[in-house]
């Protein structure tokens, strides 16, 4: 029997300024001003993400998960509360984001797309060649380096995205449902590839998904978010050891039980989200 520990990572003491904490949120909220009045997208999130943690956020659609990630990426501002991100301490970027859907530049080749972050940081040609070459090889794209994105399949395109994000060696990886548009086989392959590359680097990851399976397969800790407004419903540590093999992990009976338990949390929220939608539609 796997033990569930709801809120294992939630509501930590404010005083302990541990250097091992990478991301620290205190009562973080985001309120959009709309014509119909204020719209609360994120409501008082408080949590810590330790250094090297693979942190998963699961929630029904429209719960503000993408907004949260965009705030952490610096693409949007929060309206209340505080957010502290421990800087990397050297010249590396604090974060790189892997976006949902097609985020590659259609006018650049695979190589130029993967090298983009490095070029923007004015790295030397030699260094760029080494790093980009390495990640394209790791993701099986070496032969396709001169292709344009529209000549690749969806799975290959998302591999380029992953290479681009890893190439800059960011302190934190932010991933916004990166595999949601892929078919099941490709999703599985890419999850395995991501785990393999992650095992080499052990970066702090914040990964958003609507798939409980994906959350349990990849994550160290899972936060289930409530439907609108987005709140912390439960935070659960994933007990499975690393390195993980996706299929073997999924074949274990404890895995199914664990997924089922998380689904129970999520289920309430999915039902609630639907009730909210139907309420607003009528």
């Amino acid at each position, binding site marked *: 029997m796997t033990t569930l520990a709801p809120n294992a990572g939630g509501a930590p003491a404010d005083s302990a300024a541990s250097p091992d904490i990478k991301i620290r949120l205190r009562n973080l909220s985001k309120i959009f001003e709309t014509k119909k009045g204020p719209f609360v997208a994120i409501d008082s999130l408080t949590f810590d993400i330790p250094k090297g943690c693979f942190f998963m956020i699961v929630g029904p659609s429209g719960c503000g998960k993408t907004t949260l990630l965009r705030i952490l990426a610096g693409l949007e501002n929060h309206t209340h509360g505080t957010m502290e991100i421990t800087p990397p301490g050297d010249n590396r970027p604090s974060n*790189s984001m892997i976006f949902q859907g097609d985020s590659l*530049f*259609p006018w*650049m080749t695979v190589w130029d797309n993967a090298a983009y*972050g490095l070029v923007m940081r004015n790295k030397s040609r030699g260094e760029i060649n080494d790093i980009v070459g390495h990640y394209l090889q790791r993701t099986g794209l070496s032969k396709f380096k001169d*292709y344009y994105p529209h000549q690749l399949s969806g799975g290959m395109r998302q591999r380029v995205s992953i290479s681009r994000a890893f190439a800059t060696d960011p302190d934190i990886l932010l991933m916004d449902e990166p595999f949601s548009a892929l078919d099941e086989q490709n999703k599985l392959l890419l999850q395995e590839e991501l785990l393999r590359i992650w095992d080499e680097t052990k970066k702090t990851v914040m990964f958003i998904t609507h798939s409980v399976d994906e959350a349990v397969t990849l994550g160290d800790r899972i936060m289930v978010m409530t439907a609108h407004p987005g709140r912390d419903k439960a935070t659960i540590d994933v007990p499975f050891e690393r390195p993980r093999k996706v299929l073997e992990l999924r074949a274990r009976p404890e895995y199914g039980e664990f997924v089922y338990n998380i689904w129970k949390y999520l289920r309430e929220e999915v039902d609630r989200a639907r009730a909210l939608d139907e309420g607003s539609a009528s």
Partner: protein
Amino acid sequence: MTDAIQQSKAIEGKGRATGFSLAAYLKNSGERWMNILSPFALLLIWEIAARLGYIDTRFFPAPSKIFETMWTLILSGELFIHLKASMYRLFWGFMWGGIPALLLGISMGLSRTLRVIVEPIVSATYPIPKSAILPLILLIFGLGEASKIVMVAVGLFYPILINTVAGVLEIPKIHFDVAQNFGAKKLNVFRTVALPGAMPLIMTGVKLGVGLGLILISLAEMIGAKSGLGYMMWNAWEILSVETMYVGLIVIAFLGVIFNLILNELERMLVPWKTNR
């Protein structure tokens, strides 16, 4: 396994992308000969009609006469002088009109504030026929080279500006998010996202602009010049050399075709991710 299939698909895609040629297309269509022969057939009918007196050769001289005149003009070097003068004005008009339009257009696409300020001015001045401001331009810039160059520049400016703004606005927001997330500064956003992203529509604007430039340069040279293809045709009217007028028309038509070929090739080079899709 699935990946192997995708990879082979990708290779197929690439083969298709680079393998296209106009010759192969025409050969396959079977309409190739008709395509080449129809203009010649028209010329032949025209020639016969002119020689047999079915059409008035004072207005429609026989093609053989026109080409004879053309040959004379080529040998005397006269045609080349006019061609050179027109090309010089077109080139500098393109530089003075096209480059500011490109830079302003991208800046307007990126900055909402700039758009709000400049757009009403553009909307108000765009509908004025460019030919109608020729007298004013002659007044301000005189009868020298400048007035002709300004005329072309003004004509090119609008289609390039308007298409460039539209091109930048059409770029999905996610590409700007990516640039920002990977630390691109303003100039790099301009260079790596806005310019290449807007390039398909910029090329459309350039093609429209060059067509308009040819119209305006002919017009400007007819009224206030002592050289150029427009002047050559106007002068031919004054001395009733109908053949020379036709030579001018043929050369201008030929220029239009050549520019179009060059621009299509340029488009293939600048927008490899879109033209071959």
